């Protein structure tokens, strides 16, 4: 946009047009089309099949006047009792997801409330206030010193999942991750992009109200799992989103495990944002000096050491197909 001073009234149209075009260039058309398609699907699902019979029925019973009175009364009641929502919940969560894709990298504090039985079976799930997660898109980096050992783990830009225990690092290609870690990864490794995707697909979202979080205005979205959604590890969630920046400030996911047991879940609270180098999401950056990273090239040794570490017998199905053991990669 160029400006020639003083601005003549005839220049205003061009300036406004350029302003609108620049604003239009930032619109994500594909995402909008997806959301419109989803809305259309919802609208048609909500339209009852017998709706067209209603006018005939009313006409037959001579109840048009009554219907009109009821309609006016209901409309008036709705007008005076319903607050207009600040924006659609799906649009807001979708915008938050887009914001996470673009960066910058965001850091969240992770607090867990998990049943002791689960923690015994999955010691990697043990997190406390010391656990933090940095995330951007698919990448994440978790640091926790609250478990049996100090643990760093994450996922790099190639979606390789890795963790460091002591002086040994373990790295798995997508699809190689041991089943025992999948649940832990799902819970602990906050991947907000994936989580928000789940909310958009498998949850009913409702904006409850605007509030403040640490002095910042936020919109609270209440997410409840759709009854038909399968394989979802939690049932409900509160998502608090800054309406201006679309930043997820707080995310609380819960799973209901029975009437007598309190629900368990995780709380992610936004701490800070910054631009992290790509290497921070890679295992090598977190190996101690002289540490060893066992990756897909050393699959047999990696898997043996891993199952030894977790104190379990290696499941037959998890035995690696890698026949040859190659030399491990040492950190620089």
């Amino acid at each position, binding site marked *: 946009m160029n400006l020639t*001073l003083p601005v003549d009234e005839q220049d*205003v149209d061009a300036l406004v047009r350029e302003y609108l075009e620049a604003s239009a260039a930032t619109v994500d058309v594909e995402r909008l089309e997806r959301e419109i398609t989803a809305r259309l699907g919802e609208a048609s699902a909500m339209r009852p099949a017998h709706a067209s019979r209603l006018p005939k029925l009313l006409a037959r019973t001579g109840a048009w006047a009554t219907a009109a009175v009821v309609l006016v009364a209901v409309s008036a009641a709705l007008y005076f009792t319903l607050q207009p929502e600040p*924006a659609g919940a799906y649009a807001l969560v979708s915008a938050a997801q887009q914001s996470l894709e673009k960066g910058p990298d965001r850091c969240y504090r992770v607090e867990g409330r998990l049943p002791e039985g689960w923690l015994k079976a999955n010691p990697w799930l043990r997190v406390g206030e010391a656990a933090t997660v940095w995330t951007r898109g698919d990448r994440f980096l978790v640091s926790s010193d609250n478990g049996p050992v100090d643990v760093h783990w994450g996922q790099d830009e190639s979606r390789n999942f890795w963790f460091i225990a002591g002086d040994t690092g373990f790295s798995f290609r997508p699809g190689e991750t041991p089943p025992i870690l999948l649940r832990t990864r799902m819970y602990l490794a906050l991947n907000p992009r994936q989580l928000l995707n789940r909310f958009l697909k498998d949850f009913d979202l409702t904006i409850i109200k605007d509030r403040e979080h640490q002095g910042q205005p936020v919109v609270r979205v209440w997410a409840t799992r759709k009854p038909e959604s399968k394989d979802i590890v939690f049932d409900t969630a509160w998502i608090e989103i800054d309406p201006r*920046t679309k930043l997820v400030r707080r995310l609380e996911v819960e799973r209901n495990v029975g009437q007598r047991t309190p629900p368990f879940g995780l709380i992610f609270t936004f701490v800070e944002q910054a631009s992290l180098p790509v290497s921070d999401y890679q295992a090598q950056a977190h190996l101690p000096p002289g540490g060893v990273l066992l990756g897909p090239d050393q699959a047999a040794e990696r898997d043996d050491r891993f199952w030894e570490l977790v104190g379990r017998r290696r499941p037959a199905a998890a035995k690696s197909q890698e026949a040859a053991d190659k030399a491990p990669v040492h950190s620089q």
Partner: protein
Amino acid sequence: MDGWIALALPGAVAYANSLVGDRTHAEDIVQECVCRLLVHAARYDLERDGRKLLFRSITNACINLHTRERKTVSLDDNGRADGAGWEVADRAAVPPPAAAMAEELRLAIAEGLTTLGVRYRAALELTSLGYETGEIAEMLGVTAENVRVLVFRARKSMAAFLNARFTGEASS
């Protein structure tokens, strides 16, 4: 989805965003308007008239919104019509001085537009997007003469605003 929708969406969101001053809200309105048009697609020739109908629908929705609620605007939001808050955008490829000047102008235009009433803003923006006076009159539900008055005053007000902002003097 129909081709005309993909072509119309960016401009429609930008227009709605300018009228309501909130990107999420704007997207919500545009989605709602597109859905309404598609539900009643049988009534219209959307390939031919879809864009115009969409802008008319958005104009009405935004004017309704303005008459229904009076927003309070935080000073922090001032000028950020795209709803991006104060996050720093990635401008790696643009020289910083040029980016700063363009950003300052963009903010000034956004702020100037918000000083106009919503009908003035809509009339000016629709004119700048190339709509005819008659079409705008139809969209706003006013006469063509009214549209000319709205556009004339909006241009004058915007020019005065920008001159005051960048030269410290109001235009004559």
